[in-house]
């Protein structure tokens, strides 16, 4: 069987498999996204689900998708996490010479995954050094993007207590990450010197 005839059999029409998977698994897909965005509203969930479908559909128009259901869920996860990250406001965007951080603001892509993995490791190590209450609040904020009010209600504390924990977590993690990056830079320089010697 030639490759061409194989393609003809499987590719009924562009986007067919993805559309089928979408129709079959729509409610599961919505639940999945809701759980990722857990403090998000229904329209956020709908936006993410629709964008995921459009991306998966577009992808199937240019290549064969072997496991449309899992492709759809993976795409939805990617879109949902980008959605959470986009919520973070950058004060630098509000400066008059703003736009300098346009590169930072660009969306994460799959190519960034190796670097994201390294960042994840170092940020986890930083979070691990926080006192338990502070760590809990910090993670609710940064892992789930929960609002200060939501965290306060869930833990039955005041919003200013939540703010204090986040501020402390920010300061400590920032210092930790900074130190680790300096160490890493120093390690590289030493290795360079050794290689040259």
């Amino acid at each position, binding site marked *: 069987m030639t490759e061409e005839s194989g393609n003809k059999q499987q590719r009924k029409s562009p986007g067919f498999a993805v559309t089928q998977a979408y129709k079959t698994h729509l409610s*599961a*897909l919505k*639940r*999945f996204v*809701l*759980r*990722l965005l*857990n403090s998000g509203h229904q329209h956020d969930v709908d936006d993410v689900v629709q964008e995921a479908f459009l991306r998966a559909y577009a992808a199937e128009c240019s290549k064969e998708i072997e496991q449309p259901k899992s492709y759809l*869920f993976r795409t939805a*996860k990617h879109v949902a*996490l980008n959605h*959470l*990250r986009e919520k*973070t*406001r*950058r*004060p*630098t965007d*509000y*400066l*008059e010479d703003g736009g*300098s*951080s346009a590169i*930072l603001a660009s969306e994460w892509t799959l190519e960034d995954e190796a670097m*994201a*993995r390294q*960042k*994840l*490791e*170092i*940020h*986890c*190590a930083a*979070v*691990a050094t926080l006192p338990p209450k502070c*760590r*809990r609040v910090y*993670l*609710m904020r*940064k*892992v*789930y*993007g929960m*609002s*200060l*009010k939501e965290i306060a209600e*869930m833990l039955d504390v005041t919003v200013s207590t939540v*703010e204090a924990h*986040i*501020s402390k977590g*920010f*300061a400590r*993690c*920032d210092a930790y*990450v900074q130190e680790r990056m300096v160490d890493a830079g120093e390690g590289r320089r030493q290795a360079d010197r050794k290689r040259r010697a």
Partner: protein
Amino acid sequence: MTTGRVYPFQSDDDIRSEARDWVLKFNADTPPADADIMALREWAKRSPTHRAELARATAFWCDADVLTALAVPTDANRTRPGSFARFSGLQLTFNYIGALAAILIIKVVIINLFW
């Protein structure tokens, strides 16, 4: 360049700490008010160090969003209605099954986060 204003001397640590405060102020539950934006601009004009620290703190806070990667429910079909009703993000499992100790520690913390 004269700005027409004299500010008290600030150590780099003070500036760093204030830069973090700006990031958090701008990430409160409500968007920053015009007055906040004007105040930030004034603050950033004080020195290149102020601007650099603001950029640094902003970059850190955005980088820390890698932590969202830990919020992954693996199988949406295995929803338990009870826990789902209690908190929709409860049933957590993770994509990263790497042997990185720090990530594992935090995963354990996250599993217990809402109980």
